[in-house]
């Protein structure tokens, strides 16, 4: 059974349906991406999964059904969200931000080891560990947000538009990091407008349009699909 199984997921803001009943799966160890244009319902899907908006439909995570659970309870089950716009704690230091990522953990020695690993993966954060997170550049903040989520040792990492608002070279760095994390065996669901990058790094992909999934398949196949190329890859 897949780590995450989604059946008939609907997310609505008041009367406006942002996600109109979608099905998808993410298997253990996979990097799956959800691509689509602005307003297709990608971020809403992640918000629904994380319980930031109460969704309708069925979500099975690690064999259990998530039903009307608050966000913190879903986090406790091992789902971690790197929100759109990063959501870093601006007036806390980089080190304090990372410590917050391990809020639910009590294993001090292990947390320390994970912190060392995070600094290894992101040497930039180590240099600036005592600095306020709000003073970091956009790319560094994105790195911090990812590293912070990893501090919770999530079973599933949800990434919402990690490339947003970053310089092209910084985007490349971030994606190299995402690939490295996936390589370590962390399961990732990636939401991205930059279809080119997302298809390069992921195993499988779903294409969303106006709240519904219109295409799905292995990423390298979708990258060759004429429809996808025309709509998202600028051919």
């Amino acid at each position, binding site marked *: 059974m897949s780590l995450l199984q989604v059946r008939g997921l609907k997310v609505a803001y008041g009367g406006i349906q942002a996600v109109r009943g979608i099905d998808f799966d993410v298997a253990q160890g996979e990097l799956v991406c959800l691509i689509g244009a602005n307003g297709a319902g990608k971020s809403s899907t992640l918000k629904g999964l994380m319980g930031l908006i109460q969704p309708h439909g069925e979500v099975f995570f690690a064999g259990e059904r998530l039903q009307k659970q608050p*966000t913190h309870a879903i*986090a406790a089950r091992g789902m971690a969200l790197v929100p759109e716009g990063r959501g870093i*704690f601006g*007036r806390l230091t980089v080190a304090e931000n990372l410590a917050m990522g391990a809020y639910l953990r009590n294993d001090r020695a292990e947390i320390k080891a994970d912190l060392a690993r995070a600094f290894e993966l992101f040497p930039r954060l180590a240099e600036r560990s005592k600095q*306020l997170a709000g003073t970091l550049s956009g790319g560094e903040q994105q790195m911090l947000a990812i590293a912070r989520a990893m501090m919770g040792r999530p079973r599933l990492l949800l990434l919402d538009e990690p490339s947003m608002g970053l310089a092209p070279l910084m985007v490349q760095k971030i994606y190299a990091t995402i690939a490295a994390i996936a390589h370590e065996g962390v399961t990732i669901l990636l939401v991205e407008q930059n279809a080119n990058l997302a298809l390069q790094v992921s195993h499988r992909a779903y294409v969303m349009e106006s709240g519904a999934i219109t295409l799905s398949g292995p990423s390298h196949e979708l990258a060759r699909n004429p429809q996808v190329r025309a709509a998202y890859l600028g051919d």
Partner: protein
Amino acid sequence: MLLAILPFLMGFGLGNAWVRVLDFVLLYVLLAIGLNIVVGYAGLLDLGYIAFYALGAYLYAWLASPHFGLHLPFWLVLPLGAMLAGLFGVLLGAPTLRLRGDYLAIVTLGFGEIIRIFMNNLNAPFNLTNGPQGMNLIDPVSIAGFSFGKPLHVFGMTFPPTYFYYYLFLAFTLLAIFVALRLQDSRIGRAWAAIREDEIAAAAMGINTRNMKLLAFAMGATFGGLAGGLFAAFQGFISPESFNLWESILVLCMIVLGGMGNIPGVILGAVLLTVIPEALRYLGDLQRATLGHVAVDPADLRMLLFGVALVAMMLFRPAGLLPSHQRKREFAAEDGVAEQEQANLYDTRA
């Protein structure tokens, strides 16, 4: 040490009125520390904080005055007042959980006014609060048979009750400071800081944001209720007038002036904003002595100076007089940010 002998220095140097001022300083420190939990730690702007002070004071008056003929002991009434205020903190917090910033401020402001208006009008049909006349003859604090109500004569000297209250308030204030400092460094304090910075991210870290926000409201309100009970016992008289919007704003100003989120700053703010208005009273006497009449009413001057001080603060020390180390770094860093961002850009290219 200085704190221990301070009332004697003040008492002999400047008279008993100043010992009384000291007592009020301590009460305001207590209030400011309580409000700082809500505003400084958890980032929830509360403009109706004085309502909790009122609740603590009124509960004390109900249970220890001739009004209902109840004279329950101090050690019982004070915690009850603090608990009642804490309960109302949750009652205010629960419906406002989804609100932030300005919207929360408006609702809390309304709450503060509602409590005051209730106190003003609940003299009919059943006389609960005695309306605008307020409640009188509230029992003074009495510990182990020693009543704080009468002056003590020893060694040919007279010590009025203000001295006893000073030490009582000091004990509570030190306790409050200890609790507030411990809270800040605790798991709860870190959760509050995360909520203050980004609520969605805080929830995604596994923080129960609803419970943590309610806890902040409850803790802050408890401190307010405690201060209120002490105030009622100290004054012996309370009326709705003591709990108006201005008082809420004043306590908030103490926090902002001193340095939000930082306990020494909050204490400094409370001390300054209580002592300076008192000191300004002398300006009236000075005018009378030099000009023969009062040209500028010190009470008006107080407001003017207050405004000037706050504007000057925002311009020159926006993080407060004694900012928390984080706020200080934040404001210091702002100048360096653009420069650094530039550097980062080159970094990524290299």
